[in-house]
Each structure stands twice: as C-alpha cells, then as structure tokens.
C-alpha cells in the first residue's frame, strides 16, 4: 500500500502517464473523427506502424523533426485515402477493408524498412524531440512534470483534442461530419457531398493516427522496432467507445488508461510485482480495454450511420 502511495506521489509517474497517453490521444482523436463521419477505421493499427516508421525514417534521412511529423501525417492520409475510397464510394465492408489496410500498411512498412536498411541488425537511432519545459508551470508539484515538461508533440496532442472538439461542435465542417455519421441522406439533401466529407474525415483521422505512431519513434523512443505499436490501435478503438464518441471523454479515457499502464510498469518493480508473473501486468492494458467496452455497452449513443455505406439515390 505504501509502495502504491509512493508511486502515485512521484512526479515521474504522472509525467509517464501523460507521455504514454500522447500517442493514444492522437490516434483516438483520429479514430473518433472517422467514426463520427460514419466510417469504422480498423486500419488504425497498421497506419500507426506506418506513421511510426515514416516519421522516424524521414528524420533519419536528414529531414528535420517537424518535417518528419509532416511526413508521417502525409503517409497516414495516403492510407486514409485508400481506406476512404474503398469504403465510401465503393461501399466495401469497413471491417474487411480496415483489416486489409492494417495488413497493407504494416507489410509496406516492413518491406520499405528492409529495402532502406538491408544490412542493419539494430535499427539506427535519431535525436528525438526534446522535452520543452514551460517556465514556472513546470515547477509545480505533480502536474508540473506531468503537463508542462513534456515534448512539444504532447502539447500538440492536447491541442489536437481542443481543435477536434471545436471543429466538431462549433464549425459548419464539424456539423457536416457529425451529420454524415448520423444520416448521410440528410447531408446529401442539403447539397453537400457525403463522399467528400467521409473520405476527408477518414484521411484527416488517418493522418492523426500516423502522427500518434510517429510519437513513439520521435518522442517516446528514438528508434523504430517491429511490433512497437503492439495493439495500441485496437486499444484506441476501445477508447473511442469508452469516450462515447466525444473528444473530451475520450481524452479522459486515454489519460486514465495511460495512468493504469504507467502504474503497472511501476508495480512490476515492487515486491508484489516480483511475486506475480510480469505477463499479468503487460496484459492489464488489454484487459482494461475489454472492460471499458463492456462497461460502456448500451450506454453510449453510437453514430447512427456508423458502418452504414451510403449510396446516392439508393432505391
């Protein structure tokens, strides 16, 4: 118990929680945008892999860090375009296409990695984004290191939640996206293109997923490994459900989730952790995700047209 208290009172724990949450926040916002427009994007896992690799590779090849983030964003949007074109105008199963995009993005990443670095045994390192402590605020106890001594990409993640909320609920564009996820027929009847709105949303969302992946190689770590995304994409899908398709709640879910993750890492190092198999701790995030889905089942208002393809003038 005392050990638990020690962990919770350490600033490093809160800093770690926010750091772990950052890629999840990006990707969760990305998935949320897609689903609010009516498209389930199961490409998320693969797109995160591609983003992680693309950002890192760009920096390794000599581009700067921010251009690297832009490259990841672009790669994510490209896979989003593939997903969007296949599921929106062609109306293919979003399940199958999503899994297919995950396979495609993952395989393309691995293939490119081997092509680019045929000889290496250990992947090279880059100089990742450095923490950018905000004067005064970062000296606050607990929340200082947690919120004000992170890398710029973490600040961007929080900014991203704010931007997604504002766009979804305050702008004509956000209204059109939400309407497309509720009743695409209503969008079409008001003279807007459901196809354009949905493909646009999937591209934007996929871009954010890729940036979430890039966070892993450019901020959390400094290198690219296979399997480094390790199910984070699937967890983000659970987080969207947990957040009831609302950006603020999804952010809360991501932070809560990351908190548990940071906690399990630290608990492993306690005497209790030594007695229990470490796999138990590693499995905790996945178990929590399932529990979150179960807890939210039947509570949330699912976008009414989620996974329903729209065909103009269907008779």
């Amino acid at each position, binding site marked *: 118990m005392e050990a638990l208290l020690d962990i919770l009172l350490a600033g490093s724990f809160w800093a770690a929680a926010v750091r772990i949450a950052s890629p999840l926040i990006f990707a969760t916002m990305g998935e949320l945008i897609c689903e609010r427009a009516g498209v389930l994007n199961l490409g998320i896992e693969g797109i995160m892999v591609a983003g992680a690799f693309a950002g890192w590779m760009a920096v390794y090849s000599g581009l700067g860090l921010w251009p690297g983030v832009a490259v990841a964003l672009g790669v994510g949007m490209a896979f989003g375009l593939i997903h969007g074109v296949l599921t929106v105008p062609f109306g293919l199963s979003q399940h199958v296409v999503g899994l297919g*995009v995950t396979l495609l993005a993952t395989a393309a990443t*691995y*293939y490119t990695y*081997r092509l680019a670095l045929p000889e290496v045994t250990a992947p090279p390192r880059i100089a990742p984004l450095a923490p950018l402590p905000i004067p005064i605020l970062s000296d606050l106890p607990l929340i200082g290191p947690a919120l004000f001594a992170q890398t710029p990409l973490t600040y961007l993640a929080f900014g991203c939640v704010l931007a997604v909320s504002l766009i979804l609920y305050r702008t004509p564009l956000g209204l059109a996206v939400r309407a497309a996820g509720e009743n695409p027929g209503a969008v079409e009847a008001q003279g807007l293109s459901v196809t354009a709105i949905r493909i646009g949303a999937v591209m934007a969302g996929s871009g954010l997923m890729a940036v979430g992946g890039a966070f892993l190689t450019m901020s959390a770590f400094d290198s690219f490994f296979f399997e480094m995304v390790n199910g984070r994409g699937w967890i983000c899908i659970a987080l969207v*459900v947990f957040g009831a398709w609302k950006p603020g709640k999804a952010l809360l879910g991501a932070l809560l989730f990351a908190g548990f993750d940071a906690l399990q890492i630290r608990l492993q190092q306690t005497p209790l952790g030594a007695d229990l198999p470490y*796999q138990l701790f590693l499995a905790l995030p996945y178990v929590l*995700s399932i529990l979150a889905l179960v807890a939210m089942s*039947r509570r949330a208002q699912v976008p009414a047209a989620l996974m329903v393809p729209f*065909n103009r003038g269907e008779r």
Partner: protein
Amino acid sequence: MAMTGPAMRLERIIAPSWSRRLGLPALALVATVAIAAWLAWLAGAAPLTVLGLIVDGAAGSKFALLETLNRATPLIFTGLAVAVAFRARLWNIGAEAQLYAGAVVTVLLGTGAIVLPAPLLLPLIVGAAMLAGAALLLGPALLKTRLGVDEVVTTLLLNFIFLLFVSYLLEGPMKDPMGMGWPKSERLVDAARLPRIAEGLRLHWGFGLALICAAIVWVIQARTTLGYEIRAVGLNARAARFAGVPVNAVILKTAFLSGGLAALAGFSEVAGLKGALTLDLSPGFGYTGIVVAMLALLHPLAVVVSAIFVAGIFVGADSMSRAADVPTYIADLLLAVALLLMVLAIKMTGFRLVRG
C-alpha cells in the same frame, strides 16, 4: 462551389455477365502480379526473375510443393474458422489466440500426462483442443449477443492477452526443464504426434484432417439446418430473428465451430510439425486466415485452394529472398494488395459505378 459533373453512384447490375464475373477477379490477380513486379523492381531486382523464383520456390519441385502444403495446413484451419464466422457476420479476428489455445491443450495432454495409444489419444486431444478454442471465442460471442459489445475489438485484444498467457506458461508451468533456458514446452510423446501421410513424404496428417474439416464444413453449410441458419443470420439477422431463427444461439454455435477450427491449426502445427510449443509457433496464421477466407469468398472448399495459394506465396517469397535481394515481406504486402483488390473486384461484379 465548383460543379464537376454529377457525383458517382453504384448501380446494381441485375444479371452480371460471365466475362464480368470472371474478368474482374482475374484483373485483380493480374494487377497484384504487376504490383509484385514493381516491388521487385523497387528492390533493384529483375521483376521477371523474382516472379519466377517465387513460383519456383512454391511449386518448382516436390520438396517445394510439400513445403507449400505443409504451410497451407494451418491456413486451411484458420481460413475455415474465419469463413464460418464471417458467414454469420461474426467478426472473429481472434483465430491467432484460438490457435494457441489448441496448441496449449495439445501440449498439456500430449506430453505424457495421459498415457493412451495414439488412436485414442489423438481424438481426445483433437476434441479437447477444439473445446479450448471454442471456449476462447465464446467469451466475445457472449459479450456480443448479451451486451452488444463489438467482437472485432474484443477478439483482437484477446490475441494479445492470450499470447502473454502462453508466454507465461512457457516461462513457468509448461517450461521444458531441458530447454536450456529457452521458453519452450516439453516435446510431445510419440502417441500424440500426427503421423506422416506416407512414409518418407514430408507431409503430415494435419493436412488430411484439414481437408476433412473443409468437407465437413461444406456439408454443414449446404445440407444442414445450422448451415441455413448461419446463412440467414449473416445475410439479414433482423429478418431471421423475425422469422423465428434463434439468432443468438446460431451465433454461439458458429463461434463454437469457428473457435474449434482455429484451435485445430495449433494442434496440427504442434502434433504434426513442431512437436513442441514455442512462442513463434504461428507467424500470424490467424490473421492470414482472414485473407485466405476472403480470397475464397468464404466458401469452405475454396478455402483449401486459397490457403495453398497463399502458402505458396509465403514459401515462394522465402525461397526467392534467399536467392534475390528482395525482402521476404513482399509476400505479406502482396497478400494485402490481393485482398483489397479482390474484395473490390467481387463487389464490382455486381455493381457498376455510374454518374448521376
């Protein structure tokens, strides 16, 4: 706002011609091959040579062919598992975990815990392994039918959880004391091993079992009330429920069948090929099963063909990458491309894209 002509929409083709029904899938295949050539060219190799090496490595010799069939065996099982489930619109993405469940049970019962002659022991293990795989899918299926929790995410997440469980088993209770520290189980006793189909032939009876399973699944689908129910539930669950089909029971039965089939992949790999359980027993057979099933249009007999085709690409790519300087991941990439193009081609046999 710019007016660039009317937007596109899909129009159903009432009676698609045969040229369309065969031509489009063929086109998808050709496009996949073209992309393969392009990928080889990207790697700095001669495209035709690479393609030739893949075909040769997959089917160029008796050894290559048998290797392909061996590799196809677990894919037939996982492909069948996915095909059965997807037909009922049960999105079982957890074949990977169910495969390991079957493997774990095989090791539990097959390493000397039960002493029986092979003709009794093997059926026992098969039954127990299937039950384990079924049990693993039953959880997500129940969450779906009872609480409406989406099974895609739960089955996916279970893959990670179960693999960690297997890792725990292999480092703890099931660890081979003679394994020199490697996380590896003890070896199966001889009675628990699947014999080879013919003496001297490097192909085990797991392949035979896979063919039998494909035939059984086909009979279930075409001839039994369960098969009819699965089709009705998959095509329109609402109409099926209204007409009195016990939809939830059908989904649970489907889950049982699907999980059991996936588990057989694990059984067959351990009892037929590896003889012991390691953490790298499956290089993603569960996920590749999805590609296999989709390429087979969810038809159980076509799953066999599709599994051999997919296995051939893997085996061929492995052998090719030893000879040419093209990464073996070309196989995964091609399968993803083939999957997406084939799904698109199949859809477009029934529809055309028109303006207005």
